[in-house]
């Protein structure tokens, strides 16, 4: 990922003819980066602007990490249309890029006679959408498949196509691959304004302003997630509003691994798919989410009420779950449009395209959203010519912990930094950390999402300092400049007598 070079910025300001990009994508969430990678197949100049210090730091890192089976959303809606093709698209992405995605399947369960009709209706809907492998389960089949479920479960629907993914790992690898194929990914670059259309020049490029400079694109795709309504308003097309809906999630101790082996769904309600019990890709059990309307797009607080609600609901499904087993918790905010559906398509402003209101099943649908956006852009006049040198595959980062002893020994012989441990809970080495920094990690959270450091039992107690040192050393900044996730999330400060700090001799 490239940070804008100060020199280049100054240069651009003095230039009279600005660079015009073919496409500017606003927002480096899963939709933005998936579109960026899709566009990178073609001979185009694409730039992606992300407000946060790294891509995927918004909704994309704080969600359930579920690739839905394809049965849930009504095919009469846009989200319903894109859910199943999105599921299929994820498998292709995984095969290309090698991030963690496991098709663990989902089991939708009925806890009362009254819910059997819902189960049957979703089964029928899934069949209509072409989702393969669906199978209604009787009570005894449910028990055989998931012996730790509540005795109250009377029937279920098995959908083998559902999967779990590390959403942040996926977003990062997709973004890396897009960047490798020529997309300019610029982080810490929030969009603060969009120039009004030039009178009598409908084909003039759209000017997008960030705090330090202007960007010009023939096409601008609004994938700004929670802020998509504000970005659309900047563009002069305020046709929709985003209504944040918060979801709290709770991760349980690894001790409970195996409690369920598939995603357990209750029967859905009007506003939500309900509280799920999910075996995450990393082997921990996650319970959640809640679905709480909030006024604040940045409200990622967890609450005692949310926890109570999640555990009450989760224990109805799996009685062995307890709040005592929580090792981490987080909340994400869904970007729900007032229409309760995705808003994907051109606007009254030529060249300005929306990919907004991407609520559940947004993560699942993302690859299909990207394909749909290609059609939209093409219809709007963007020429899509295949590139000869497109590299669909990613060079996957080394996961030292997952290698055999022989492979580990061989790596360590080649590069001693592979034998220098940083995180002992997840067995992450210095070489992996440096590689992650070279791939664009700028912050402690970025390192964590890329390498899993600090995600284990000690939650960073032992390795935080080492990681901060490596971030500072590799980026040639002072340690106090290292942040948790960019912005004002500083980690340490200087002493009063810092002017007496002896200079550090590097290389020791």
């Amino acid at each position: 990922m490239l940070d804008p070079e100060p020199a280049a910025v100054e240069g651009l300001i003095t230039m009279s003819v600005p660079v015009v990009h073919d496409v500017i994508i606003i927002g480096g969430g899963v939709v933005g980066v998936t579109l960026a990678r899709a566009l990178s197949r073609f001979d185009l100049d694409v730039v992606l602007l992300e407000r946060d210090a790294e891509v995927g730091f918004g909704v994309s890192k704080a969600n359930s990490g579920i690739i839905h089976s394809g049965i849930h959303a009504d095919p009469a809606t846009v989200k319903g249309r894109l859910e199943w093709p999105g599921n299929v698209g994820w498998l292709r992405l995984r095969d290309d890029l090698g991030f963690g995605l496991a098709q663990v399947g989902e089991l939708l369960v009925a806890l009362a006679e009254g819910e059997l009709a819902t189960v049957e209706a979703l089964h029928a809907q899934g069949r209509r959408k072409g989702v393969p492998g669906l199978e209604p389960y009787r009570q005894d089949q449910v028990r055989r498949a998931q012996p730790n479920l509540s005795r109250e479960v009377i029937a279920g629907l098995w959908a083998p196509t559902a999967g779990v993914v590390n959403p942040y790992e996926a977003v990062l690898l997709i973004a890396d691959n897009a960047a490798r194929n020529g997309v300019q990914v610029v982080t810490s670059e929030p969009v603060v304004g969009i120039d009004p259309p030039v009178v009598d020049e409908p084909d003039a490029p759209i000017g997008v302003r960030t705090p330090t400079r202007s960007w010009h694109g023939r096409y601008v795709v609004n994938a700004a997630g929670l802020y998509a309504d504000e970005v659309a308003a900047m563009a002069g097309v305020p046709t929709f509003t985003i209504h944040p809906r918060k979801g709290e999630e709770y991760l349980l101790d690894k001790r409970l691994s195996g409690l369920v082996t598939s995603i357990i769904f209750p029967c859905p309600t009007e506003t939500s798919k309900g509280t799920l019990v999910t075996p995450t890709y990393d082997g921990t059990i996650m319970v959640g989410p809640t679905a709480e309307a909030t006024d604040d797009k940045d409200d990622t607080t967890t609450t005692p009420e949310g926890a109570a609600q999640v555990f009450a609901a989760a224990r109805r499904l799996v009685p062995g779950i307890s709040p005592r087993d929580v090792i981490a918790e987080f909340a994400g905010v869904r970007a729900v449009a007032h229409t309760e559906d995705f808003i994907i398509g051109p606007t009254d402003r030529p060249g300005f395209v929306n990919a907004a209101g991407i609520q559940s099943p947004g993560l699942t649908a993302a690859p299909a959203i990207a394909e749909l956006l290609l059609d939209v852009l093409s219809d709007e006049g963007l020429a899509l010519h295949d590139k000869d040198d497109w590299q669909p595959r990613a060079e996957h980062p080394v996961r030292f912990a997952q290698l055999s002893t022989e492979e580990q020994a061989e790596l360590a012989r080649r590069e001693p930094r592979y034998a220098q441990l940083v995180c002992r809970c997840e067995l992450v080495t210095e070489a992996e950390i440096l590689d992650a920094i070279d791939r664009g990690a700028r912050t402690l959270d970025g390192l964590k999402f890329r390498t899993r450091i600090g995600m284990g039992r000690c939650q960073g107690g032992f390795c935080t300092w080492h990681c901060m040192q490596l971030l500072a050393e590799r980026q040639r900044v002072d340690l106090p400049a290292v942040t948790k996730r960019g912005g004002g999330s500083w980690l340490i400060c200087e002493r009063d007598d810092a002017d007496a700090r002896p200079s550090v001799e590097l290389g020791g």
Partner: protein
Amino acid sequence: MTISSEPRHLDARYDVLVVGAGPAGMAAAIGAREMGASSVLLVDREPDPGGILLQCIHSGFGLHAFREEITGPEYAERFFEQVLDHEVDVLTDAFVMDVTTDRRVKLMSPSVGVTTVDAGAVVLAMGARERTRGAIHIPGDRPSGVMTAGLAQKMVNLEGYLPGRRAVILGSGDIGLIMARRLTLEGVEVVGVFELLAHPSGLGRNIVQCLEDFDIPLHLSTTVVGIHGRDRLERLTVAPVDDERQPLMDRAWDVDCDTLLLSIGLIPDAELARDLGMRMDPLTGGPMVSSTMETSLPGVFAAGNVVHVNDLADWVSQEARVAGEAAGALSTGRMRPLEDIRLLPGDNVGYVVPHTISSDHNQTVSFRVREPIYGDTQLRLGQVHRRKLKAAVPAEMITLKVGPHLLEGFTGDALRVDAVPFDADRDAKGGER
């Protein structure tokens, strides 16, 4: 004291391999050599041996081991001088990745790469880790500025940075109290220490010399119920708790601060033990051990905070010396003592270590009370021994010397350890008669 991390040669086999070079590991290595082990390898993951002692720059160490009160770094250095005198092989910057049941030890280090060595006996001395925010589930935002007291201690004492400008400490464990003083001395404002329990978790002397000396308020029966701040911590909500430790939200108040240090307890860092399939004690979180600190896996010993969290490094070293001596003895072919009596935590006892003892040799039994008794306390070891203490609080580990002199004539196979108010004990006895 820096040990070179240049490429080096390790033997294929060591009589005793010790994992961790803190106060436990160093003592174990010395003990092993003294009991006849001809080759001992002491492995530590940090560049310098000493473990957490190096950042514990305060005094309070050495009263038992050296008969004088010294600081953590001094304790580490003096112990390490003995380690070197005992011709122990030391490998730092090295991490033990795996130990098999037949004691093949897989380790990694820039100086030796990824390699395995065999060991006649292994002593696990990895110490403890700090409990984190996840363990206590505080609702709210997840800003930077929330960290364990130990991490802040490392920043301040080794690296010369401050964790923030205005700090609150949650938990009155010794590390938290000591950090309250450290931060004050280094120019950070410490707003207060908040403790969920009705009594402090740390030693009384630390309440006096770390808080009272600097007028830092200690709020007992009060806890943090909310964390606020999008990027960096800006504010905490704190509330008193009722007898069931439930927060009284109508009496909550806000505290402005940019740093929250967590001093909410230590847990044995016993993953390696768990991975090995040892029998674990759910009360301590560490492996179960015999009177010689041998785990359920023959030839694998454990000692110090990896077994149970001690309040003094001196105890840790003492216990680890026992483990090291036994490991050394075993490696020279000597027999194990017969372990014929199980110890069980009884009335008001949180845990007991070791889990079994032998009736034919002397051993130290350590335990902690669950609830504090501020007054005469009766300790009971089954029916074989009674001892009166002036008081018993969870913050202070209690030790008993147990040997043939007490166990002569005892024919059972288990003994309960109790610690009850002296009066209650007398009443109970009266009732029995």
